[in-house]
C-alpha cells in the first residue's frame, strides 16, 4: 500500500496567500519575454512607445512590490491534489479561501468580488476563489493562483459550432472575438482557445490554455500551425497595443482540445490581457 502524506491545511493557506501576492506583483517571465519580443518586431512608433510603458510598469511593480494592475482580479485557483495526500485540519476549499483573504489583505490587493451577481454586495476580502481541483498520482499538492481581471474576462466568448463550421468556423470565431473586443481587454492580449468537449468543458480548456502558458510550440504540429496562423491573422487586424493602432494586438494564442460529440464543435476563447498572471508552488 502507498503511504499517505499529510499536508496541514494551514500550509495550503500560507501558500495561497503567498501566491496571490506574487502573482499580482511579478509578471511571469514568459509574458515578459513575449513583451520584449513584441518590442523588437513592432514597426509602429506609437505602439512601440506603449509597449515600452507596459514593460516599464512590470519592472516598477516587481521592484517596488506593488500590483502590476489595479484590477487584481478574481482569484482563480487550480489545485492538483495527489491521491496519496491527506489534508489535515480543514477542507481544501476553506484553506484556499483563507489564503485568498489573507493574501489580498496583506498584499494590499483590491477586493473585487461580490457575493451575489444581481444584488452585488462586495464580500470585502476577495473570496470566494474560483477553485478547480484535479486528482493526480503521487503525494504532492500543486497550487496555481491566477488572478483574473474582468476587462479581459468580459471579452471572452463561447460558441457551440457545428461540424459543418469546421476549422474555418473556429478561425472566424476567434478573429471575430478579437475584433469585437477591440481596445477593451488591454491589448496586447493573450488568447486561450478551447476546442471540443462539452459546453462547460470547453470554457475550462480555454482557461487552462491561458493559465498554463505552455512553454514552446503546441506538441501537435497541426495545432502548432493553427496557433501560428491565428496569431498572425490577429496581428494583421491593426488594433495594436492599447487599441491605438499597431501590429502587436496579441502576444500569444494557445489552444487546448478535448474529444467531443459527433454532432458538436464547441469553441471558447478566454481573453487575457498583457497582465496575464499566475504563480505556482508545489507542496
Amino acid at each position, binding site marked *: 500500500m502507498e503511504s499517505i502524506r499529510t499536508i496541514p491545511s494551514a500550509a495550503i493557506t500560507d501558500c495561497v496567500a503567498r501566491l496571490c501576492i506574487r502573482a499580482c506583483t511579478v509578471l511571469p517571465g514568459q509574458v515578459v519575454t513575449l513583451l520584449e519580443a513584441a518590442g523588437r518586431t513592432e*514597426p*509602429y512608433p*506609437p*505602439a512601440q512607445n*506603449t509597449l515600452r*510603458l*507596459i514593460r*516599464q*510598469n*512590470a519592472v*516598477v*511593480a516587481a521592484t*517596488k512590490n*506593488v*500590483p*502590476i*494592475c*489595479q*484590477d*487584481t482580479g478574481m482569484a482563480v485557483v487550480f489545485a492538483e491534489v495527489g491521491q496519496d495526500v491527506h489534508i489535515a485540519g480543514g477542507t481544501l476549499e476553506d484553506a484556499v479561501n483563507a489564503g485568498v483573504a489573507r493574501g489580498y489583505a496583506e498584499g*494590499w*490587493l*483590491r*477586493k*473585487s468580488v461580490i457575493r451575489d451577481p444581481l444584488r*452585488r454586495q*462586495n464580500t*470585502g476580502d476577495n473570496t470566494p476563489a474560483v477553485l478547480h481541483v484535479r486528482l493526480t498520482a503521487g503525494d504532492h499538492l500543486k497550487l496555481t493562483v491566477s488572478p483574473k*481581471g474582468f*476587462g479581459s474576462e*468580459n471579452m471572452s466568448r463561447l460558441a457551440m459550432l457545428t461540424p459543418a463550421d469546421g476549422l474555418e468556423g473556429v478561425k472566424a470565431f476567434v478573429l471575430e472575438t478579437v475584433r469585437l473586443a*477591440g*481596445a*477593451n481587454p*488591454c491589448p496586447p492580449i493573450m488568447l486561450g482557445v478551447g476546442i471540443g468537449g462539452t459546453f462547460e468543458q470547453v470554457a475550462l480548456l480555454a482557461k487552462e490554455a491561458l493559465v498554463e502558458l505552455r512553454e514552446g510550440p503546441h506538441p501537435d504540429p497541426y495545432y502548432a500551425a493553427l496557433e501560428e496562423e491565428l496569431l498572425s491573422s490577429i496581428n494583421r487586424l*491593426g*488594433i*495594436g497595443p*492599447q*487599441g*491605438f*493602432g*499597431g*501590429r502587436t494586438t496579441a502576444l500569444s494564442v494557445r489552444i487546448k482540445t478535448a474529444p467531443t460529440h459527433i454532432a458538436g464543435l464547441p469553441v471558447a476563447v478566454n481573453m487575457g*490581457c*498583457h*497582465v496575464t498572471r499566475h504563480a505556482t508552488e508545489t507542496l
Partner: protein
Amino acid sequence: MALSLQSPFTQQVLDSLRAGDQVLLSGVVYTARDAAHARFCTALAAGEPLPVDLRGQTIFYAGPTPTPPGKASGAIGPTTSTRMDPYTPPLLAYGVKALIGKGQRSEEVKAALMQNGAAYFVAVGGCAASLAACVQSVEVLAYPDLGTESVKKLVIRDLPLTVAIDTRGEDFYREGQKRYLESVR
C-alpha cells in the same frame, strides 16, 4: 510633445484639444465606476443632488488598490469605459466635462460629448504600478460602502493620457488604427 493641463478644464482648453493629443494632467479628478454611476443616475433621475458636485469636473473610471501605509496611493489605472456608456449621457447633460477610462465608447456617448462640449481621455490599461506615482492623494468622498468602487477625490500630477474623443467627436481609436494600417500598406 505632451501638453501639460489642469483639471478641472476650462471650456477653451477642452475645445482646443484634438483626438490623439498626448496630455499630462494635473489637478483634481474624481473616481467613479459601475456601482457609483448607477447611484448617480438614480439620484439624477429623482431630481436629487449628487453626493459630490461634479459639474465642470473630471471623472476617472478607476478603482484603486488600497493605499498601503506610508504611500500616497495604491496601484491605479483605468477600467473599461464601455460599461459606463449607459450612464454617461445623463452625466454629461448634468455637467461633467471630462472622462478618463480605457476603450471605445458608443455612438450615443460620442454624440453626448459633442453636444455638451466634453472630452474623453484614456490612460494605458494595465500600467497601474507606474500610474500610482502620479497620484498625490486619495480621499473617499462618497459611498464608502462600495469599497474600491467608492467615489474618491484624487489629486494628480502629470498623469499621462491620450485624447481619445475630442469635443468635435473625433475618435482616435478609429484614426490611430487607420493610420497604422496605412503605414504598413
